[in-house]
């Protein structure tokens, strides 16, 4: 493909019959073992159960509301009430568990209104995340046929779900995983190396688990005090080291091959192109392609590289707010 080609894509997904998105799943609250109640995160539609505990059973109070727009998926002569049933699908990938909870007990047929029920989850049967998804499902065949869903058992309407977090989401799904390494193990870098990046495909920051003091700091979940303050600063410090390495790695790949090799490298270029991180290194309005080209050029040319590394350290420090974190640390911990 010639370099001067621009690509674009578009897509359209469609159901083969009338389908409506007017089913709303609401969570009004949840409580554990008939006692302590928790509060849902309404912004992200998440129930952070992992922040509570220990518990054996959680009861989640849900409501399913059928919007008037849902009427359009049924022919005029079918209702209201309509021959369908609202359900909440419970799905947990990790424990291979998937089932539907019928909402309310006197359905079908249904009016377009709000139904309430309680979804009970036994902790022993779930791990990780559980998805709750509302659906409206036909309970009889449709005499009119298309464009209406013709068979019973077909979903004719749905809506956004909620995520139930039974356990802490695994850290390394969100970022470059930072892991403790025992450097005394073979195939590990020498002890002198306090941190490093391993090669493709998973970039890792390594902290020696023998450094008890550092481990204490990094493991501290406290919100105030010496260690949490130091931890905030160390995170900025590690951030600088890591970003410098990631950018240089990406730059050398671009210099060698003309483009990025891995998704994360494209991500690094994207980060540089869209965040203030890149403004210190490139034109602030440089687009992705420009940043990629420039990055390759500055890393490729030894005379440019010297300046670039200096600029890069500055940019990474600004980006991670290194100075502010250090200032805060000194401010709070000075004797």
């Amino acid at each position, binding site marked *: 493909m*010639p370099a*001067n*080609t*621009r*690509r*674009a*894509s*578009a*897509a*359209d*997904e*469609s*159901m*083969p*019959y009338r389908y409506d998105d007017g089913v709303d799943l609401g969570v009004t609250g949840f409580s554990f073992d008939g006692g*302590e*109640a928790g*509060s849902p995160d309404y912004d992200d539609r998440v129930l*952070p159960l992992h*922040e*509570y505990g*220990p*518990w054996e059973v959680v009861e989640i109070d849900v409501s399913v509301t059928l919007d008037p727009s849902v009427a359009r998926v049924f022919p005029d002569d079918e209702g209201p009430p309509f021959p369908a049933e609202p359900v909440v699908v419970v799905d947990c990938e990790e424990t291979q568990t998937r089932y539907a909870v019928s909402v309310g007990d006197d359905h079908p047929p249904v009016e377009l209104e709000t139904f309430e029920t309680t979804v009970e989850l036994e902790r022993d049967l779930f791990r990780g995340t559980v998805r709750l998804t509302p659906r409206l499902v036909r309970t009889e*065949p449709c005499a009119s*046929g*298309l*464009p209406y869903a*013709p068979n019973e058992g077909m979903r004719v309407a749905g809506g956004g779900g909620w995520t139930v977090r039974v356990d802490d989401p*695994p*850290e*390394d799904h*969100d*970022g470059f995983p*930072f*892991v*403790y390494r*025992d450097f005394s193990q073979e195939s590990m870098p020498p002890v002198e190396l306090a941190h490093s990046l391993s090669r493709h495909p998973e970039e890792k*920051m390594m902290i020696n*688990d023998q450094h008890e003091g550092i481990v*204490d*700091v*990094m*493991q*501290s*979940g*406290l919100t*105030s*005090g*010496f260690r*949490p303050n130091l931890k905030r600063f160390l*995170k900025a410090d590690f*951030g600088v080291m*890591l*970003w410098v390495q*990631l950018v240089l790695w990406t730059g050398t790949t671009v210099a060698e091959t003309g483009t990025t090799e891995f998704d*994360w490298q*494209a*991500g690094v270029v*994207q980060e540089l192109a869209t965040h203030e991180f890149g403004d210190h290194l490139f034109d602030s309005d440089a687009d992705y392609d420009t940043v990629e080209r420039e990055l390759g050029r500055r890393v490729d040319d030894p005379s440019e590289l010297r300046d670039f590394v200096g600029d890069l350290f500055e940019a990474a420090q600004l980006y*991670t707010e290194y100075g502010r974190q250090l200032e805060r640390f000194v401010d709070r911990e000075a004797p």
Partner: protein
Amino acid sequence: MSSTKWEFPDQESGLTDYHSIPTAEALDRDLETFVREVLQNANDQRLDNDDPARVTFDLRRLTDELPEFLGSLEWGDEMQSPSQLRWHVERATENDQARDPGLRRFLNGFDEEELLVLTIHDENTTGLVGSETDNSEPYGALVKDFGGSQKPDSSSGGSFGLGKTVLWAFSGVSTVLFNSVPHQPESDHEPPRLVGRSILPAHEHRTPERTFTNHGWFGEDDEEEIERLGRPPSLWDDDGAASDLAESLCVDRPSDRPGTSIGVVGFRVPGEDLQPDPSELSAQFRHAAVKHFWPAMVRDELEVFVRTPDGGQTQVTYDDAPGVRPFVECYDAAFADHDSELSAPGEIGATTVEVTVPAENGEVVDDPTPEYETECDLIVRRLSPTDAESLDADDDSALSRNTVARLRGAQMIVDYVDESSLGDRASDFVAVLVCGEAQAAPGTEPSDEQRALEQFLKRSEPTQHDEWKGSKNDYLKKFYSGTIVKEVAALAGDRLEAALAELVREEVESGDSVPDMDDVAPVTEGRDTNENGGGKSAIEWDERPETEFDGRRWTFSGEGGPRDDDHGEWTVALELVRLDSDESTSDAIPVDSVTPQTAGVGFSTDGDGVELDVPADTDTVAFEGESEPVVGEGVSVSEAFELGLITQAKLRVSAEVSTGGGE
């Protein structure tokens, strides 16, 4: 009908002992201390039964009733005499050697139209037992001697016996009334018994050779008894006199149960406004009561009520100091089995803190206890979001994260120790350190070790009972021989920290991930490919590509062209696919035909899809097309769904535009 009077004993002038204010020590106390000490007295004097001690705070602003109150109090009229209180108060303010500015201020501000009286009723308590002269009983101790304390057992909240002086410090006129139903009545009297006491600076007698001392008593005007005791005796209810008087003095008993009603006349908080806001005071009573006495409340040993100005009364609950809730959770579970690890928020774990109780000094104590090596129980709760909310909802900085509440058998929190400097792989927590007789499960007898530790810690408490103090504590050192300072200090210091660390510390091994590091370098998700055609997509759609099922085939259409007019040849590839159960793409649906609506556009089939080839001079193209039939011969529509032939489908469009004179 018996009459009452005030009597201040007098002494020869010049004896300087009386030129001091006995309540001076209590003058810097805040309302919290007041509530603590009042409740502690009631809690200590709880009767030995299954019912809780009940304490009611009743704050009244007297206006219409004030003349009757003052009359009953023998406050005094224009025709003043030393048998009336006002006479003494006015003279006491003139003592230059023992100034009590609060007293002066009260007198200046008091217009006899309004007066605040706080009455504290305790019920199911021992009451003021004892004859007029028996100083070993509570009554005698109260009326006679401020230096001693009479409380039922060794776990009681007081060691120095000055607790009650706090009452007078909170009276603008330094006068407190007591109306009590003792649980063991005096044989020849009908309860309740009523007595008042005032503590004022010494003041001048009518004759200059004599001086009135600090202490004044209010009681029955019985010359014979006054002669015998040097003060009036308490007024009993033998002819209903005490009950009637108590009612007009706001200290009438709320029930027949034993206990005492204490009236603080002219209630004020030392150093604050003379006219405090009753509703604000009420909130402070509630908060302080819960903050310090939730252990007794948990064990159903104490209940506290606050009476509102409208006559209603409400019980104090944990909601009045929400910050105690996580501690209550800990303590509630104190006698259950626990893990030695806290892996999840809201989990409770337990460990112990070692302590050596030194041997008692045989020269001071009869039957001294030997040295005991024992331990306190430490219950720790890792905070859940609900806990954090509770702590945040409380303005009191003592009730915060990473704090240890300490208590002994008195079931009162001695103090809250800040352990936020502890950070060994820890998450936010709260803890309760249970010591001494509190370590005995409800319904069981404390062990000898627990009793000894109880006594040791109790003796280490200063007057306010708000810490355990080993250093510079001569009182404590008098009772023991051995290591004292270090043992007391360890319960707040290194040993406590070590025990906490053991419980909240998480083991980390090679390969474990470092928490909360995602924001340091998030995995960036690769490049945004403008899937939705928004932003700076190379193609601008006049009509976005769409697909629709017509009952037999999938149809599709769209119209658009390169955003940038300076372009070379361009192509649009179209593809239809089925979606499966996970809404991910499955097999292709072959395109049967496509019709470019624009002249000069060629097309070629590309597998199951189709590609439109557009010359450089064409800026937009419109297209329409359809798939091959998805429903085969002899298959009904209904069946075609069951067979997975008619499914959700996706139209995929990808365009490539050569730029910069690509011809």
